[in-house]
C-alpha cells in the first residue's frame, strides 16, 4: 500500500515536471507544443542508452539527457519562432511523430519494445530500487523545475514572455529581442521535458515508446489547460486531478481490471470536456483572470445598486463599455460569434482640461520650445519599397527636428503607416537610408531601433490585453536587469531593486496620462480611448528620443481628443521629437510644426500647415472636389 502511494507520487511528480515546463512555454509564452512528451523521450532514451553503453554516473547520464533535449529543442525552435499557433501545433506534431517513429524503427533504440533493464542505479552506495527511494531524485528535479519556472515566469523576464504571448510585434517594438526570449524558453522547457523523461525511464526501468506518444503529449496540454494556463500550481493540480482519475474510478466503481482501464479513459475524456465548460479559465486561473473576475463582481454590485435607486440611475454618467471578450488573447475569437456578455464599465480616466498642472515625470527634462532650425534627429533619404508591382514608398526624404512635431498627412493608402514600418525596421526598404541620431538604422530589427531611441505606437493600439495597465507600461521601460536570464537567477537583489524603481516610473507615466487609477485593471478591459492613453504611456516609458505616433487621436471620444493632444504638446515641450500620422486636419493644425503631404507612396508637398492647406490641388487630393 505504502509502495503504491510512493509510486503514485513518483508518477505525479514526473508529470508535474512535464506540465510546469509546458506551462512556461504555453501558458506564459503562448507557444503551443504537442511534442513535449517527445522531448521527454529524447532525455529518457539518452539516459537509457548511456546506462546500457558506457554508464558513468546517475547525475552525468541525466545531465547528458537534458543536454541533448535542450539541443534538439533549440534546433526545433528556429523554424518554430515565426509560426502562428496552428502551424506550431502542426510542426510540433511532426516532430513528435518523427521522434517516436525513430525510437521504434532504429534498432539501437530497441524498436517497439524499447530499451529494457535500466536497473541497479546507484547514488553513492545506495542502490535505487523501490519507489520510496526514487522519490528523492524525482522530487528534487520537480522542486528545481518549479523554482526555475516560477523565477522565469513571475519576474520581469516573465512579463516579457507574457507580452510575447499577447502581441509579439508590440513586444518587439518596445525593444525586446523576441527571438532570443522564445529561443531561451524553447531550450529551457525542452531540457525540463528531457529531465522528466529521464526520471520516467529511471523510475519505470525501461525506455518505451508508449510512454512518450502523441497521447501523452496532448494529455500534458490538457493538464496545463485544465489546471489553468499561466498558473504553475494549476499545472500541478491538473496533473494530480487527471492522474488520480483512473485509480479513483477503479476504487469507486469496483470494476474488473480489464474493464476499468476502458471505463476510466471514457470518463477521462468526459471530465476533460466538463471542466473546460465549467472552468474555462482552468481550475486555478492566472492572476489577470482573478483580477477581471473581481472587477466584474464589483461592477455587478454597483450596477444592482444603481438600478435599485430608480430614476436617479439615469443621471449617472454613461461610462465607456468594454466587452470582456476584448481581453481575448490573440487567436481567441475566431471560433465563436457570441457577444461578450459580462462587460466592464470603466469611467473616463481623463476629464478634459484637467491636465493643466500635471506633474511631468522627471525623465522629461524641460527644454525650450524648439524652433525650425533645431538639430536634426532623424533623417531619411531615398527610401523606396515595392510590393510586387505596387510602390508603397518612393524616394522618401523626411527630416525630424528635435523638440518638434512633424505630421504625415494624406489620403488613405498614401503609405503613411508604411513609412513608420520602413523606418523602424518592421519592413526593410529596397533602398535608401535612415539616420537616427547620426546612425544608419536600415537593416536593424525593430527592437534594435527602439533601443537606439526611436519607438512607435500603433493605430490599433496593440495593447497587451491580459496584462494590467501598469504591466503594459512597465514593459516599455528599457534596460531592466530582471529581463535577463542571468540576473533573475544570480542577481536577485538588483532585480528586485530595479523592479521597484521600474514600477514607480511606470506609475509616474500612468499618472502623466491620467490613468494611474486603473493601473491594476487588465488593459483589455479598458475603453479604447483609455487603451490609447496606456499605449501612449507605454511608448513614453521607453524614454526614446523619437516618438512615432500612428493616429494618436483616432477612434477616441471628442472629449478625450483634447486631453490627448495636450499630452503630446507637453511631450514636445520637454524636447522630445514627435512624428504623427493623422487624418484629422484639426489635430494636424494644432500640433504640427512641419507637415509632409503624401500621395501614393510619394511626398508631394511639404511645409507648414497653413501653406499646405492654401494649395487647392492638395485640398482636392485630400477631400476630393469641394
Amino acid at each position, binding site marked *: 500500500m505504502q509502495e503504491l502511494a510512493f509510486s503514485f507520487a513518483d508518477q505525479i511528480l514526473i508529470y508535474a515536471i512535464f506540465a510546469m515546463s509546458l506551462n512556461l512555454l504555453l501558458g506564459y509564452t503562448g507557444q*503551443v507544443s504537442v511534442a513535449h512528451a517527445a522531448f521527454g523521450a529524447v532525455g529518457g532514451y539518452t539516459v537509457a542508452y548511456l546506462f546500457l553503453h558506457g554508464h558513468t554516473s546517475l547525475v552525468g547520464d541525466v545531465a547528458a539527457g537534458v543536454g541533448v533535449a535542450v539541443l534538439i529543442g533549440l534546433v526545433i525552435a528556429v523554424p518554430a519562432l*515565426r509560426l502562428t*499557433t*496552428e*502551424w506550431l*501545433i*502542426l*510542426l510540433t506534431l*511532426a516532430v513528435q*511523430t518523427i521522434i517516436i*517513429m525513430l525510437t521504434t*524503427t532504429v534498432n539501437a533504440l530497441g524498436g517497439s519494445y524499447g530499451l529494457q533493464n535500466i536497473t541497479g542505479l546507484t547514488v553513492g552506495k545506495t542502490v535505487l530500487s523501490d519507489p520510496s527511494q526514487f522519490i528523492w531524485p524525482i522530487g528534487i528535479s520537480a522542486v528545481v523545475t518549479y523554482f526555475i519556472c516560477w523565477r522565469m515566469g513571475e519576474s520581469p523576464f516573465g512579463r516579457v514572455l507574457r507580452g510575447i504571448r499577447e502581441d509579439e*510585434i508590440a513586444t518587439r517594438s518596445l525593444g525586446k529581442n523576441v527571438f532570443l526570449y522564445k529561443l531561451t524558453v524553447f531550450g529551457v522547457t525542452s531540457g525540463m521535458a528531457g529531465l522528466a523523461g529521464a526520471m520516467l525511464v529511471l523510475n519505470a526501468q525501461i525506455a518505451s515508446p508508449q510512454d512518450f506518444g502523441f*497521447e501523452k503529449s*496532448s*494529455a500534458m*496540454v*490538457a493538464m496545463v*489547460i*485544465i489546471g489553468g*494556463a499561466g498558473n504553475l500550481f494549476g499545472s500541478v493540480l491538473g496533473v494530480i486531478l487527471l492522474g488520480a482519475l483512473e485509480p479513483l474510478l477503479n476504487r469507486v466503481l469496483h470494476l474488473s481490471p480489464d*474493464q476499468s482501464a476502458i*471505463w476510466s*479513459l*471514457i470518463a*477521462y*475524456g*468526459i471530465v*476533460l*470536456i466538463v471542466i*473546460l*465548460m465549467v472552468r*474555462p*479559465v482552468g481550475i486555478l486561473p492566472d492572476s489577470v*483572470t482573478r483580477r*477581471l473576475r473581481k472587477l466584474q463582481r464589483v461592477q455587478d454590485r454597483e450596477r444592482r445598486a444603481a438600478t435599485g435607486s430608480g430614476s436617479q440611475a439615469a443621471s449617472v454618467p454613461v461610462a465607456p463599455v468594454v466587452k*470582456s471578450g*476584448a481581453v*481575448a*488573447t*490573440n*487567436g*481567441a*475569437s*475566431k*471560433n*465563436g*460569434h*457570441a457577444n*461578450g456578455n*459580462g462587460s466592464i464599465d470603466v469611467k473616463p480616466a481623463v476629464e478634459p482640461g484637467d491636465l493643466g498642472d500635471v506633474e511631468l515625470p522627471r525623465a522629461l527634462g524641460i527644454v525650450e520650445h524648439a524652433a525650425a532650425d533645431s538639430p536634426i534627429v532623424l533623417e531619411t533619404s531615398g527610401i523606396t519599397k515595392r*510590393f510586387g508591382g505596387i510602390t508603397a514608398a518612393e524616394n522618401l526624404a523626411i527630416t525630424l527636428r528635435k523638440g518638434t512635431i512633424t505630421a504625415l498627412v494624406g489620403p488613405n493608402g498614401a503609405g503613411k*503607416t*508604411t513609412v513608420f514600418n520602413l523606418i523602424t525596421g*518592421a*519592413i526593410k526598404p529596397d533602398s535608401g537610408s535612415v539616420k537616427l541620431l547620426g546612425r544608419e538604422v536600415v537593416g536593424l530589427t525593430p527592437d534594435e531601433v527602439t533601443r537606439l531611441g526611436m519607438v512607435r505606437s500603433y493605430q*490599433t493600439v496593440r495593447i497587451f*490585453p*491580459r496584462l494590467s495597465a501598469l504591466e503594459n507600461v512597465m514593459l516599455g521601460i528599457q534596460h531592466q536587469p530582471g529581463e535577463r536570464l542571468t540576473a533573475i537567477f544570480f542577481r536577485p537583489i538588483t532585480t528586485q531593486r530595479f523592479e521597484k524603481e521600474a514600477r514607480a516610473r511606470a506609475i509616474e507615466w500612468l499618472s502623466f496620462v491620467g490613468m494611474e487609477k486603473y493601473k491594476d485593471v487588465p488593459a*483589455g478591459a479598458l475603453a479604447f480611448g483609455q487603451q490609447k492613453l496606456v499605449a501612449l504611456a507605454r511608448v513614453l516609458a521607453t524614454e526614446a528620443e523619437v516618438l512615432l505616433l500612428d493616429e494618436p487621436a483616432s477612434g477616441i471620444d471628442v472629449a478625450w481628443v483634447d486631453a490627448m493632444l495636450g499630452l503630446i504638446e507637453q511631450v514636445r515641450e520637454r524636447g522630445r521629437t514627435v512624428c504623427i500620422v493623422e487624418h484629422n486636419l484639426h489635430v494636424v493644425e494644432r500640433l504640427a510644426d512641419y507637415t509632409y503631404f503624401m500621395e501614393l507612396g510619394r511626398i508631394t508637398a511639404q511645409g507648414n500647415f497653413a501653406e499646405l492647406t492654401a494649395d487647392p490641388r492638395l485640398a482636392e487630393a485630400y477631400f476630393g472636389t469641394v
Partner: protein
Amino acid sequence: MTLAGLLQQIVIGLDKGTTYALLGVGFALIIGVSGRFHIAYAVSFTLAAFVASWATTLWNLPFWPSLVLGALAAALFGVLIEKFVYYPLSRIALRNGTNALLMIFVASLGISISGRNLIQLVATARAAASIGGFDNEPVNVGPYITLTTLQIASFVTSWVLIGILSVVLARTTLGRMIRAVRANWEMSLCVGVSPQIIYLVVFAIGSAFGGVAAVFIATGTSAKPDMGLVPMFYALVVAFVAGLGTPPLTVGLIGLALGMVESLSALFLPTQWTSVVVFAILLVYVAMRPVQLGDRIKKMLASAPKPGLAKG
C-alpha cells in the same frame, strides 16, 4: 528493382494516395471553414468502419448501403460534436477571453479518448470487426499490374466524391455560402448566412468523407478501435500542406502525391521508414514555409488584426 515491382508500388501509391486525398479533403473542409482543430476526426473515422461492419455482419445488409450507413454515422457524430461541444466551447472561450483554438483542441482530445474507448467497449461486446458483402477479386491489367476490385471501387468512389464536392463548392449557392463563411464569418452574418449552420454542414460532409475512406480501409483489413489516429495525422498533413482555403481537387491531388511519395520511397528505404518520410516532408514543409510576405503586410496594415486560423 524490376519493372513489375515499380508498377506495383505505383498501384499501391495510387490506392494509399486516394485514401489520403479523401481524408485530407474532408479534414481541410472542416478545419478550413470552422477553424476547429478537430482531432476527434479519428473517432468519426473509426465509428464509420464499425457501423459498416455491424451493418454487414449483424444486420446482413449489402456492402454499399452499409458504406452509406457508416458515412452517415460519421457525419452525425461530427455534427453532434460541433453542436454540443465545439460551438458552446467557442462561446465560452469568447466570453472568458481564453484561447478558443486551444480549448477546442483539448476538448477534441477528450472526445478522441472517450470515443475510442467507448467504441472498444461496444466492439468487444459485439465481436464483429470485418466488413463483408464485398466481392474482392484480383484484376489483372496487362502482364505486370494486379489490381483488386476493392482498390478500383475505392478509387472511383473517392474521386467521384471529391469531384462532386468541387462542383458544389464552385457552382452552387451552398458552396458560395461555405466559401463566404470560410473567408469571413462575421461578414457572412451580415448577408444572412448563418456560420453556425454552415459549420454543421462542413462537419457533416467532412466527416462523411472520412467515413467512406474508413469503410474502404476496414474492408481490406478489419475495423479496429485505434484505427483512426494515424489516418487523422495524414488528413492533417494533407490539409495543411495543401492549404486550408484550397479547392478540393487540389487538396486531393496533394493527398495522391503524398501516397505516391510514401509508396515509392519503399523502393529506396526499408518499409518501416516510409511513414517517417511523410512526416519528414511535413516537417521540412512547415519549417521551410517561406514567411508569407503578403500575410505580414496585411497584418501590419490591417485596421483590426483578425486573430484565428490563417488561411493557407
